[in-house]
């Protein structure tokens, strides 16, 4: 078995175990777990809506999962993906509104750049703070989340809202900034499903992140810094530069959620659009073992759960869509308790296993 396959085996076990525990909980509240699970997951696999919506929900999770992954590989905890994606989504919409009359050839690249650069900037801020002052990125990214959300809300409410519209959203972006829905290219797949080209962009980013981290010298330096900063420094690597670079790349990836949301789905900035994508991205990165392939799989799982939650809520007696959060939480706990799990599955515990 290749190393990658072996690395992903454990999260798979964690997921299965979580489903078993979840099943017990469902039993306890009076429903049939098999029925509930069939509703939960089955709905994610239906064509075209199930698969379409699942892949659509997975798109932002892939972006934020990749964002957190890049941070982790440098030894940094980017808890700020949520703020980064909000800033980026707004910036994307802003460019799309201000240059609304331009053609797609100009507008699409500029909006892409807006998403990527604004996300990178919002990510670089805590990076610089850590590099220069040593202040912890966990605290700074969390605080910047609040600032981002408030800033963006403010601008939407007081400057970019459509007059008279009670909904907190901006005016629409220009037609040139729209990116195509996949329904346009796939026969039998309706265009009402918001799955769009951003999904393909997300997959492309997985490949690019892989190449960046494992095939370029920059990626080597980032990973070395995350693995052992003392040795990286000894090898002539500038730790400060790596921190800022990793946080900027991380922010840029989170920012691409804006492309999916604004250019491919709502065609405007809709305040509060994020269903905790930034934080779920942390879970996705963890479950995916901080590897792009794992991130895709984990994002698909979490997206399927999210989509299925609505069905379970509607169609079963006692189970509500909170079961999705419960399952997600148990999965995270099991992934975190890896050592315990290995012991449980490793057979009889003898002193021999103590590597003293």
């Amino acid at each position: 078995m290749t190393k990658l396959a072996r690395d992903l085996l454990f999260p798979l076990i964690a997921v299965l175990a979580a489903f078993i525990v979840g099943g017990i909980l469902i039993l306890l509240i009076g429903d049939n777990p098999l029925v509930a699970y069939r509703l939960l997951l089955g709905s994610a696999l239906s064509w075209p809506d199930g698969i379409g919506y699942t892949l659509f929900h997975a798109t932002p999770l892939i972006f934020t999962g990749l964002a957190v992954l890049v941070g982790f590989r440098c030894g940094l905890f980017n808890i700020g993906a949520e703020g980064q994606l909000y800033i980026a989504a707004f910036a994307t919409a802003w460019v799309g509104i201000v240059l609304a009359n331009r053609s797609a050839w100009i507008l699409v690249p500029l909006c892409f750049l807006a998403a990527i650069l604004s996300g990178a900037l919002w990510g670089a801020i805590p990076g610089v703070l850590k590099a220069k002052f040593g202040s912890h990125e966990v605290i700074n990214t969390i605080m910047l989340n609040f600032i981002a959300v408030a800033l963006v809300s403010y601008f939407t409410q007081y400057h970019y809202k459509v007059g008279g519209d009670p909904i907190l959203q901006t005016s629409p972006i220009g037609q040139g900034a729209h990116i195509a829905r996949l329904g346009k290219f796939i026969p039998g797949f309706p265009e009402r499903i918001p799955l769009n080209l951003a999904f393909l962009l997300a997959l492309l980013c997985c490949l690019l992140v892989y190449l960046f981290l494992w095939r370029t010298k920059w990626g080597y330096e980032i990973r070395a810094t995350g693995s052992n900063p003392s040795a990286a420094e000894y090898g002539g690597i500038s730790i400060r530069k790596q921190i800022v670079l990793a946080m900027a790349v991380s922010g840029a990836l989170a920012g691409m959620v804006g492309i999916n949301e604004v250019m491919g789905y709502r065609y405007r900035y809709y305040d509060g659009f994020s269903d905790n994508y930034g934080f779920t991205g942390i879970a996705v990165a963890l479950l995916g073992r901080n590897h792009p392939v794992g991130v895709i799989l984990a994002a698909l799982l979490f997206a399927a759960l999210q989509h299925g939650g609505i069905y379970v809520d509607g169609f079963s007696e006692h189970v509500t869509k909170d079961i999705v959060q419960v399952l997600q939480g148990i999965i995270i706990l099991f992934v975190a308790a890896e050592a315990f799990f290995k012991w449980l599955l490793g057979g009889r515990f003898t002193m021999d296993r103590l590597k003293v």
Partner: protein
Amino acid sequence: MLELRQITKRFADVLANDHVDIVVKPGTIHAIVGENGAGKSTAMRIAYGFYTPDSGEIVVDGQVRQIKSPHDAIALGIGMVHQHFMLVETMTVAENIVLGAEPGTNLALDLKSAASQIRQLSEEFKLAVNPNEPIEHLSVGQQQRVELLKALYRHARLLILDEPTAVLTPLEVEEFFAILRRMREQGKTVIIITHKLSEVLAISDEVTVMRDGKVVGRVQTKETNAAELARLMVGREVLLRVEKSAPEIGRPELELRNLSVADINGAKRVNDVTFEVRSGEIVGIAGVEGNGQTELIEALAGLVNPERITGEIRFEGTNLNAMGARVRRELGIAHIPEDRHRRGLLLDFILAENSILGVHYRPPIVALAGGIFLDNDAIQRRADEIIQKFDVRPPNAALPARAFSGGNQQKLIIGREYRVNPKLLLVSQPTRGVDIGAIEFIHQQLVALRDAGCAILLVSAELEEVTSLSDRLLIIHEGRIAGEVDPKVATLEEIGLLMTRGH
């Protein structure tokens, strides 16, 4: 007192102990020697109950015993002190000693009776400690005494000590030997696991030599010598003394003038040091650890904040003070760090990726000049070159660095630094934790590099090593150069005095 008969233990596909027979007579100090991986620690861990043997028996005081856990071993009077101490830093000496065997009831811990028992043992064995001192305030030598007391408190009659002198200064080693002799006088039996032949010859009564999981020799210490022990350990003749010709000295590569390096609190760790290292020579720095060697080497390598450095460092005439580690490497300065795990390796990365640390950002490792992609073929080629030339085992560059023994890790680091053909090599503790066979090889390589014209600055706490390798020998004491001696003629006393007294 203790006999291991035909002990066999296998871990997955490694036969750690192969029908091992060890006999330890009561009231003796018995040394078990062997290279890393020879199986000596495994055998002793079986005796202490950490592992159970696949076959064979353990005989204690003439009776066959089942030792399934350390509890059983302790009940039989066997105690063990590990290389890495198992002490709770924030608790006191007394608390640590009684941990797990607390006197008093479950509700009322009776530390007073513990303290008095400890004092008694302390006097009996001359192990001076203050029972109420927290561990974190103690020196390493004192901590070791606490570990010994832990075993004695549990009525150990046989003490197994794993690499006991690895962390001690030369002075502490002498004190430690005195403690061992006292224990022997009091009727205790001691087993020391070690690879330091000079100490084996100084303190033990009998020696068991292990190699590749088997016992290959059993001798009375009086009747053997270092060469014979080394030959048994390695399986061939080992040169214990480095052979080198007279140096061919060129111009100064490194010049230090009034160099001072302060630590984070502003205290001077290197104090007004002036000397030079010329091409084709090895300048050694001897000294008890903690006298500024670490700070000196790190400052020369560019790993210290320039704000903490005063004075001049010149390399081939250029002032290095403002230059970072990368620039210094590019100028031709290589560095073999004293802490290979912290500084020298990315333990979670594979060996191949470690072999390019320091040159990873430019051709030939980077595919095109100015490019960003790594050339995997070039990386593999470099790794294979180093593995082959320096006999790194197992010869598999795809394994994580963590999987290699200390000696092989060190060989990789040395190979990596050599491969850049440095003009100046800074090397610190090159053979710490390295097997005797590899030590010989590393020494030969250092001399070869010096003969090729490299200037080498060697820091080592092993007096034998630094005196035999150096062409000139400086002694460092409290950050200053206490003196310079000719290593060919200086006596160990002379050097020792300079090391401990500073003049």
